[in-house]
């Protein structure tokens, strides 16, 4: 343990005891009432039974206490902190303070004054404050840079949140590692379910959740647990995939009402399409700003052959045939649009695809029988698309399976899960092959790739067409989930995801070229607008600000591709072997450190 001068001059043992005490006080406070009236969402009036935002404070305080105890080097707890020891404590104390502080502020603001606070809120608030201040007194995990001017308070604060990178883990028995992966996904499912089940009108709780989750996730990253789990999931990729699929499969069984399952189904559509876009953008590096058009092509095709009363064709294909038709029509459109545009590079391609995306919407709007032939029913769209009936199961009805009830959205959710699994499989297998390597090579350097014998145009067209097909596939199910297809669902940017801008944002937010990135990006981008409805009017503005901040602070996305991680953060890493001859190659030695 390095003994660095802490931000607040306290002897380390005292700081540690004070942090633990503060966290314990904050924890105890959550069992007391925080306000007198149950008007504030979540009912914070009950003694001995934390509810709503109190649970978040409770969780953060327990974690703070746990990680503070890790600082004592207690046997059996060390696996929690393979990376930093004190920086996670600081971040978790910050999570406690942030959540508690936010709650106190929200109560005071909504109920009209500080008088509405009961002692419990003060106990927790003061406890969290003590914990945070004392945590600042803990020594840093990382030494301050020795050279350069003495660091100011802000730099020292940032440094105190840094942590050393994690070394290689001791190998566990295979079943143990699989157990850890399973547990990690169980926790992830629990957190996701908790998050999605926050009542839509209780946006306070959702904001509190974002604060707690954000700081806790950062703390776990600093502690090195995330790195450990990532290492395990990379080692057992198939197990991880199955675990993820099982966790996703369990989700509808945790839901009593259809409302939140529908959100889950919509997230799944969004994520699946984003993953399809990731083939085009993440692997082949083709910036496609009109991708949602292919989702629209699939959805419209499925709607036309679904037997909907207003469909211009008026045929009813069986579902499998509708899926194949939708995917095939999307594929054709992908090739038709890709063939002329893919000769362009970079910005030009982006502009042309943006144009084609809008052309789709405008065309569909005009094929209404007035401005053009009647095919799509114009801006009215094709309504009342009948529910699917597969294997004798009517997807429109609720079904009871044992103690669980599967509502209509749940049926579609499970069907979508199959589509998602197909897309995941396609993404993984194509990425991990000769074709996928050629895509990445084209992304890296098209000229060099052609000089290596890669037919760049053909492979780019393949990526484009494959992406279109996957989107079309998702679109065929989407049309049934949403009853209606209208042109306004498939625009460049709009309030409801998926649209082209949000799809691209989900890919970039999650992490380009990664499998899990689009899922996390899509979940966040769908849930945040859905749960924070009071800021609906400013949604696009906030979305833009969030993207700018992301590009500034974490350009590689939340889930970093190993390559991107090195690309963007090589200057932060210590240079082990400087190469004086080639200044621009000075990162020669960091492979080990960053890998």
């Amino acid at each position, binding site marked *: 343990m390095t003994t660095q001068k802490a931000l607040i001059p306290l002897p380390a043992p005292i700081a540690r005891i004070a942090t633990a005490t503060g966290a314990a006080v904050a924890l105890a406070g959550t069992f007391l009432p925080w306000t007198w009236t149950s008007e504030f969402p979540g009912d914070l009036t009950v003694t001995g039974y934390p509810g709503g935002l109190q649970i978040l404070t409770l969780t953060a305080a327990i974690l703070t206490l746990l990680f503070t105890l890790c600082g004592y080097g207690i046997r059996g707890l060390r696996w929690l902190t393979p990376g930093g020891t004190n920086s996670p404590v600081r971040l978790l104390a910050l999570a406690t303070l942030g959540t508690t502080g936010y709650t106190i502020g929200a109560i005071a603001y909504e109920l009209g004054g500080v008088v509405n606070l009961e002692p419990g809120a003060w106990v927790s608030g003061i406890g969290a404050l003590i914990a945070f201040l004392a945590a600042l007194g803990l020594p840093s995990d990382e030494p301050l840079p020795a050279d350069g001017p003495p660091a100011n308070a802000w730099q020292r604060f940032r440094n105190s949140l840094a942590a050393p990178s994690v070394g290689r883990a001791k190998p566990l028995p295979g079943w143990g590692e699989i157990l850890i992966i399973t547990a990690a996904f169980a926790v992830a499912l629990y957190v996701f379910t908790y998050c999605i089940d926050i009542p839509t009108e209780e946006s306070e709780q959702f904001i509190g959740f974002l604060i707690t989750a954000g700081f806790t996730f950062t703390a776990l990253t600093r502690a090195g647990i995330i790195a450990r789990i990532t290492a395990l999931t990379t080692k057992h990729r198939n197990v991880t995939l199955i675990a993820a699929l099982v966790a996703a499969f369990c989700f509808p069984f945790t839901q009593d009402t259809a409302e939140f399952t529908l959100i889950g189904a919509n997230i799944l559509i969004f994520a699946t399409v984003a993953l399809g876009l990731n083939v085009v953008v993440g692997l082949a590096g083709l910036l496609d700003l009109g991708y949602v058009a292919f989702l629209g092509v699939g959805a419209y095709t499925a709607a036309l052959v679904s037997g909907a009363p207003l469909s211009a064709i008026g045929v009813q294909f069986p579902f499998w045939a509708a899926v194949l038709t939708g995917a095939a029509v999307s594929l054709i459109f992908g090739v038709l649009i890709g063939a002329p545009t893919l000769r362009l590079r970079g910005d030009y391609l982006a502009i042309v695809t943006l144009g084609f995306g809008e052309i789709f919407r405008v065309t569909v709007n005009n094929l209404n029988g007035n401005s053009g032939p009647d095919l799509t029913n114009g801006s009215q769209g094709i309504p009342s698309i009948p529910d699917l009936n597969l294997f004798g199961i009517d997807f429109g009805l609720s079904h009871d399976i044992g103690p669980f009830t599967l509502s209509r959205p749940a049926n579609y959710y499970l069907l979508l899960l199959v589509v998602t699994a197909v897309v995941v*499989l*396609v993404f993984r*297998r*194509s990425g*991990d*092959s*000769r*074709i*996928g*390597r*050629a895509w*990445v*090579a084209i992304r*890296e*350097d098209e*000229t*060099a*790739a*052609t*000089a*290596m*014998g*890669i*037919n*760049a145009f053909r492979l780019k067209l*393949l990526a484009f067409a*494959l992406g279109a097909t996957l989107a079309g596939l998702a679109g065929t199910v989407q049309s049934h989930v949403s009853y209606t297809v209208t042109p306004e669902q498939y625009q460049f940017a709009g309030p409801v995801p998926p649209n082209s801008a949000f799809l691209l944002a989900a890919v970039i937010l999650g992490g380009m070229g990664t499998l899990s990135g689009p899922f996390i990006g899509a979940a966040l981008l769908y849930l945040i607008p859905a749960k924070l409805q009071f800021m609906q009017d400013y949604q696009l503005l906030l979305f833009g600000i969030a993207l700018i901040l992301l590009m500034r602070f974490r350009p590689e996305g939340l889930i970093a591709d190993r*390559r*991107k991680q*090195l*690309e963007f953060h090589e200057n932060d890493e210590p240079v082990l*072997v400087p*190469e004086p*001859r*080639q200044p621009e*190659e000075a*990162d*020669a*030695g*960091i*492979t080990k450190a960053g*890998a």
Partner: protein
Amino acid sequence: MTTMTTTTNTTTTVLDASGVTMRFGGLTAVRNVDLTVNAGEIVGLIGPNGAGKTTFFNCLTGLYVPTEGKVSYKGTVLPPKPHLVTKAGIARTFQNIRLFANMTVLENVLVGRHTRTKEGLWSALLRLPGFTKAEQASHERAMELLEFIGLQDKADHLARNLPYGDQRKLEIARALASDPGLLLLDEPTAGMNPQETRVTEELIFAIRDQGIAVLVIEHDMRFIFNLSDRVACLVQGEKLVEGTAEVVQSDERVIAAYLGTPFEGAPGAEEVAEVEAAEAEAVASTGTSPKDTTTTEEEDTR
């Protein structure tokens, strides 16, 4: 300077470029250049900066379509598409290293295998029986090549993180992965120190010994004359002379192209005397170091 190459007397022509001309608008970058490379031969291509060497290379590999002339490989005329040229059997490296920086060393070489493998998207998606076998074979071949250039221990490193010399070597391995009959190297030793240059030289001999003909662009004269069976000199887009190292080295036009011609009617001896006198004067009068004056004088006479 000794030539340690052994001339193999095979008559099969690997590369036959005849009358290659490349014009960019009014500028003729390459004018009517003929060049042949025979099997098992190392041919050097030299010339001052801007002579059109790299343009000529680009014409050979299909990156540029030559305005006039044709390039044939083992008797068949090459199509003007880079990937088809590579498929036909000509691989190249670039003057400024163009590795796939964010791919691993192994992946870079595997990309080079692209033309020699056929597994398409369906094969990858359905993992058809041939897929795993082909991937395995590609991996084995790639590791073999990495061993050949001595980078087998760095297979999992990102290409961008390799030291400069290794990046150059990796580019050669990536080119070799396409099983070429002719390897085009564009300044393979640029920026290398003498030891690294010597290692590269041995590497190129080893490649030649595998039966691959090599065409090298280089500025390092010692390196190129040591290496090549034949050297061609390109000046202002035209081929001045072609022949063995001795012939090219002693050719006056080549020397003139690199060093310039002496002044008309100013014999060397007189000039030297003049310079020495001026130097002596400078030392005597100002007492400053004569070195600066000498260098400027020398540069003037160049």
